[in-house]
């Protein structure tokens, strides 16, 4: 066994298969995210039932595999008395399929808005903290230290439950908790960028300090925060679902994946798996898709 064997192939040999793998995985991640985004746009319109009104059929199991072709044919020719419940119905009679495809509008909006807000605030504060290092920005970093040492889930729960369980409050709570991450990432990048030659050149051209910071340093310091954002969007979806699961998130009957899992949780002991399993698959795939995307971006950035 030679040294080269144990150390693995050289860099040159690893980059080729690695590239292929990344693209294959990247494709899956991109597809998942694209589907979720499309559903967020049109989900509630293409849903066969209103996601927030009940049907008279309670806890109806999803059709078995053998029934699906007949139901498909029936729904195309319009010979059925009501559209089929592809994923069954839950204990209140909601059509699970309609709710699963309507939920991205809520889940994705919360995740995107919370991340957008914290990205905006975090990047600007991070730029200030990295560019101007004085007592005020030192204090800002201590405050964000304290914010970052809060237990994330419990703090989110406190903020949402005490401020009132609404979509806007969830967005604000998540934004507050995610901002320190973006401050820290941007500050570190700004500190490494501001000593480079092009910044010196921009100053020498007679640009005022603020212009140098905003027009030259800022655009070059965005990458770490943007990469982080693609990962955090996935985690924001998980957190939103978790909040609903313990009863500190959106209110029923809002179509939201975590809430749907939670309402189905009591039935799973009785063997009625479908009210929880389908929305769970949706979260599982969605967050995985964002994780893959974030990871691919991170590697691309690191690889130059």
């Amino acid at each position: 066994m030679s040294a080269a064997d144990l150390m693995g192939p050289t860099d040159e040999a690893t980059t080729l298969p690695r590239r292929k793998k990344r693209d294959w995985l990247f494709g899956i991640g991109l597809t998942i995210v694209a589907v979720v985004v499309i559903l967020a746009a049109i989900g509630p319109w293409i849903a066969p039932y209103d996601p927030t009104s009940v049907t008279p059929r309670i806890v109806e199991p999803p059709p078995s595999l053998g029934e699906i072709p007949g139901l498909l044919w029936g729904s195309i020719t319009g010979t059925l008395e009501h559209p089929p419940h592809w994923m069954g119905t839950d204990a209140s009679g909601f059509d699970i399929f309609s709710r699963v495809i309507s939920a991205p509008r809520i889940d994705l909006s919360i995740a995107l808005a919370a991340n957008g807000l914290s990205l905006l605030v975090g990047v600007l504060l991070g730029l200030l903290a990295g560019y101007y290092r004085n007592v005020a920005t030192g204090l800002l970093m201590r405050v964000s230290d304290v914010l970052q040492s809060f237990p994330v889930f419990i703090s989110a729960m406190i903020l949402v439950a005490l401020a009132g369980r609404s979509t806007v409050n969830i967005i604000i709570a998540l934004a507050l908790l995610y901002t320190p991450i973006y401050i820290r990432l941007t500050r570190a990048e700004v500190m490494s960028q501001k000593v480079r030659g092009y910044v010196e050149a921009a100053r020498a051209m007679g640009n005022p300090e603020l212009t140098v910071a905003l027009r030259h340093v800022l655009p070059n310091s965005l990458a770490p925060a943007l990469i982080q954002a693609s990962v955090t969007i996935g985690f924001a979806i998980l957190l939103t679902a978790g909040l609903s699961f313990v009863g500190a998130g959106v209110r029923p009957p809002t179509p939201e994946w975590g809430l749907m899992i939670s309402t189905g949780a009591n039935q799973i002991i009785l063997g009625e798996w479908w009210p929880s399993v389908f929305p769970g698959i949706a979260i599982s795939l969605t967050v995985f898709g964002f994780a893959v995307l974030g990871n691919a971006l991170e590697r691309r950035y690191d690889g130059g």
Partner: protein
Amino acid sequence: MLVRYIATRLVIGIAQLIGLVIAVFFLIRLLPADPVSRLVGLNPSAEAYAQAERQLGLDRPILTQLLHYLGLAPEEGPGLLQGSLGISWVTGSPIVEEIGRHLPVTIELITLSFLIAFVLAVPIGMLGALKPGGKADRGVFIYSLFAGSQPEFWWGLLFVYLFFFTLGVAPPPLGSLSPLTSPPPEITGMITVDALLAGRPDTFVEALHHLMLPVATLVFILSGPIIKMVRQNMVRALRSDFVLYAHCAGLPRWQIARYALRAAMAPSITLIGILYGFMLGGAVLVESVFSLSGIGQYSVRAVLSFDYPAIQGVVLIITGISLLIYLALDLIHAVIDPRVAY
């Protein structure tokens, strides 16, 4: 030198905790919740409302309340300085006692999960690291990315459906012991340990049986980030100069792998510590699925019933433990890695 370092860190940590206590104190009072009406119920008379407010001490100026909570007004009763976290508004018992009862349940759950996740993750991560870019590495990488981005409460429910309802090999998700079993006398608060201390092996086995699914859920979720990190650190260690030197010196392969593993462990332990602190509050969803009365379940109850002293207590205790873990990590790091200086 070391003593001075620890002292400085402790002082900073305590200052941070004081800042946190005050921040949480004002934050929850700024939010538009009305704990008084939550306690007295719907449509109380004005007198009942005023009396409840007086009982909770909410009629006094907010600064007086803060001084009382911090223990700087000893004539009003004990506060933080005297080691008291206040009295629960809902149950009327001291918060310190309640947290002391719930915290061990969470510690038992996550310690067991971390041990198993770590023991499983190290060989899997090493497998991936031995041939970066190979088939095994690819599988390990996708697995860790997947496991690290999953809703743990949903997987807990899936496990319940599979192992309790379908296969019948797990108990129902209704707590840490069957309701018919009397719990062992409370010594540590961790049921498995208490059962052993009380000399009741059957209760010990039953407690493990009830922990089976929650631990499996957490192991699955935790294995993602831990495998990823072991793999990364192992790849880095195998590429370092000392491994090359060991090869040149003609050392056997297993011995080199051992050296590399040791070098890869130091940064891995840091991440595990951070994850552990995170899981103290992060196990709440798994506790909720399996009705384990840990600190997470306690905080859900406290938050949903607007029990301010309990909320403050939970945040303070969890953050305090996390800060202590970070300090311990830095010390351990210095012991393992001789290059680290204070």
